[in-house]
C-alpha cells in the first residue's frame, strides 16, 4: 500500500448527496477478475452525460473528491474504493460517509476525511470558481488546507499511523511472521497437506 502523509492536488466538486456504491461502481463491473482498471466503471451512469463534472477538462486532473453527505452507502463492495483509486483519487472529503465504505477505504489506503458541511460548501465554491485551486490534505497534522481555509479533521492514531506507514492488514500480520513460523513448528504432525 502507498504511504499517505501530505497530498496536494486539484479537486473535483461532486455536488450530490447519498451517492451509493451502485453509483460509484455499477454491479456489471463486479464480474471482472482484476483489481485494477475499474476507473472506467467509476460513476459510469453519470459519465454518459457530457456535463457531468468528471467529463469537464478543467477537472480532469483532480485527485481529491469533494462529495456531498452520506457518500458510499449501499453494498459492502470493495470495488467502490478500487474504482476511486484506479481513477486517481487519493482522498475523498465529505461531511458524512457510510460506515462500511469508510472502513474499506481506510483499509485500502484511500483517505476519507470528514469535514463540516459548511467547509465542504466553501471548498465547492472555491474549486468551482477556480478549478486550478490546490487543496492540501495533510495527514501528519490532520488538517485540510486550501487558500485561507485551514480545517482540522479527526482520525484515530492507529489508522493514521497505518496509512502513514502504508501498511495494509497483510503487512500488519506479516510483522508477526516469526510468531507464525513458530506456530507452524508446533502444528499437529498428522494435519493434511494438499501437495
Amino acid at each position, binding site marked *: 500500500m502507498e504511504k499517505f502523509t501530505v497530498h496536494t492536488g486539484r479537486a473535483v466538486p461532486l455536488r450530490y448527496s447519498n451517492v451509493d456504491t451502485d453509483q460509484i461502481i455499477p454491479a456489471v463491473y463486479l464480474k471482472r*477478475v482484476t483489481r485494477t482498471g475499474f476507473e472506467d466503471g467509476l460513476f459510469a451512469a453519470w459519465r454518459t452525460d457530457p456535463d457531468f463534472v468528471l467529463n469537464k477538462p478543467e477537472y480532469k486532473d483532480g485527485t481529491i473528491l469533494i462529495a456531498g453527505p452520506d457518500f458510499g452507502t449501499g453494498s459492502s463492495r470493495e470495488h467502490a474504493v478500487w474504482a476511486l483509486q484506479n481513477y486517481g483519487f487519493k482522498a475523498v472529503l465529505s461531511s458524512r460517509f457510510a460506515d462500511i465504505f469508510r472502513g474499506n477505504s481506510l483499509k485500502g489506503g484511500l483517505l476519507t476525511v470528514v469535514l463540516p458541511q459548511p467547509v465542504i460548501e466553501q471548498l465547492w465554491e472555491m474549486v468551482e470558481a477556480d478549478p486550478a485551486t490546490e487543496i492540501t490534505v495533510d495527514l501528519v497534522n490532520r488538517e485540510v488546507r486550501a487558500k485561507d481555509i485551514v480545517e482540522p479533521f479527526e482520525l484515530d492514531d492507529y489508522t493514521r499511523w497505518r496509512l502513514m506507514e502504508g501498511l495494509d492488514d*497483510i503487512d500488519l500480520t506479516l510483522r508477526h511472521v516469526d510468531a507464525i513460523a513458530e506456530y507452524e513448528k508446533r502444528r499437529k504432525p498428522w494435519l493434511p497437506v*494438499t501437495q
Partner: protein
Amino acid sequence: MARTMAEKVWEEHVVRRAEGEPDLLYIDLHLIHEVTSPQAFEGLRLANRKLRRPDLTIATEDHNVPTENIFLPIADPVSRTQVETLRKNAAEFGVRLHPMGDIDQGIVHVIGPQLGLTQPGMTIVCGDSHTSTHGAFGALAFGIGTSQVEHVMATQTLPMTPFKTMAVNVEGKLKPGVTAKDIILAVIAQIGTGGGQGHVIEYRGEAIRSLSMEARMTICNMSIEAGARAGMIAPDQTTFDYLKGRPHAPKGELWDQAVEYWKTLPTDEGAVFDKEVFLNADELSPFVTWGTNPGQGVPLDSVVPDPESFTDPVERAAAEKALAYMDLKPGTRMRDIKIDTVFLGSCTNGRIEDLRAAAEVLKGRKVADGVRMLVVPGSQRVKQQAAAEGLDEIFKAAGAEWREAGCSMCLGMNPDTLKPGERSASTSNRNFEGRQGKGGRTHLVSPLVAAATAVRGTLSSPADL
C-alpha cells in the same frame, strides 16, 4: 475450566494474542474456487507477494461450470474468464487445482471431505459462506470475504474476534422418511434466519449422533441460513470410520495419535454455551419452505400460513411479500403446490447418500409429465460412484437429466436456471428471490421429498406414492 468444542479448536489455533487486538488464528486448510479468488490473487501480484502455504491450499471449479458438454469452451464469457483466470492463477502460484473433467473436481464443500482433507479440530476457510459444511467433522470452518482470502493466501492466518457459542440439542429418534434436511429446516424455522447471528452452532443430542457423516454435513451446511458463522458436530466413531483410508487421512501411527487427539475435542461436561435451543426429533416430519427465506418453512402436512397469523409485524410483512413473490394463497395445502422443476444436488444434498435416497424412490417410477428433473452430483467422484451403483440408469429411466458435477441450479450462475414464474422443489439451501433464476420460485426440500415430488408433480413425500 470446562470448554466447548469451538473454544478448544479456537485456542489450539491462536498464533498471537494481544490486549485490545483480535486473535491471530492459524488456518489449516484454504479452499478456493473461481468466483471469489481472482481479486485476491491479483492483490498478491500487485503487492509482489506469494502464497505462504500453497500446500495447505486447494482449488476447484464449481460455481459457474456448465453441467453439460464440459469439454467445450464455456459459452458465457464471464464464467469462462473466471475459470480461465483460476487456471492461470493456480499455475502461477503453485496451487493444486481440480479443473472440469478431473476426477476430483466438484463442489468445493464436497471434495474436501471426500479427499479426507477435512478433519476434526482443523480451521478451514473458503471465500464461500457454506464452508460451514466442514464443521460436521468437528472442524471450525467458516466463509470469508475476498480481502480475507488474500490475507490467508499471504499469511495462512486471519485476525479474528471470537464467536459466541450456541447449542442446538436434537433429542429423540427420527421417524422413517425424515432426514437431516428436515431437521435443519425445522431448526431454522424455529430460531429464524438471524437466530444464530455471531455464533458457532454446535449440533448435539441423540438424533444428531445417529446421523451419517453425509447427513451431518447437510445440517452444518445450512448453519449459515440460521445466521450462524459456523456449525459443528463432535467427532465420534462415525467420523473416524468415514475418514479412515481417505487419500489425505493420517495413516499408521499418526492415525492413532490423531484419533487420540480427536477424542479430546468434544465439549466438556459442564461447559456453558451462550445460547441453547432444543428440538424433539420424534415430532419431526418432512419439512418444506413456502417463502423466500429458509426460515419460512412448515411441515409438508400443513398449509401455506396466513401472514395475519404472525404477531411480529416485520415477519408479517415479510410473509406477505414472500407469498406475493411465490404466488401462493394462505391456507393452500403444501401438498397441492404444483412444481415445474426438481433440482437434486448442491453442497447441501448432492452427495452419494442423497442420490441413493432419491433413486430408491424413483426406481421403477417416472417423473411426472411436464416436470423437469435435474440430477447434479456434488462431485465427479459422486457421479462415478452413482454410476457404479446403477443410480444413473434409474434416474435416466425415470426421465430425469443426469448431469456433470457443479453448483448448477443451486445459484444459477451457469445455464441451469429457472425461467421467470417457474417453481422448483430444490434440495439446495437458499430460496431467495431469483436465486435459481430471475423470477424463479424455490421450495427447499429433502432428496426424498424432491424425488416424490418429481413423480407426483406436486410437493410430496415418498409416503404419498
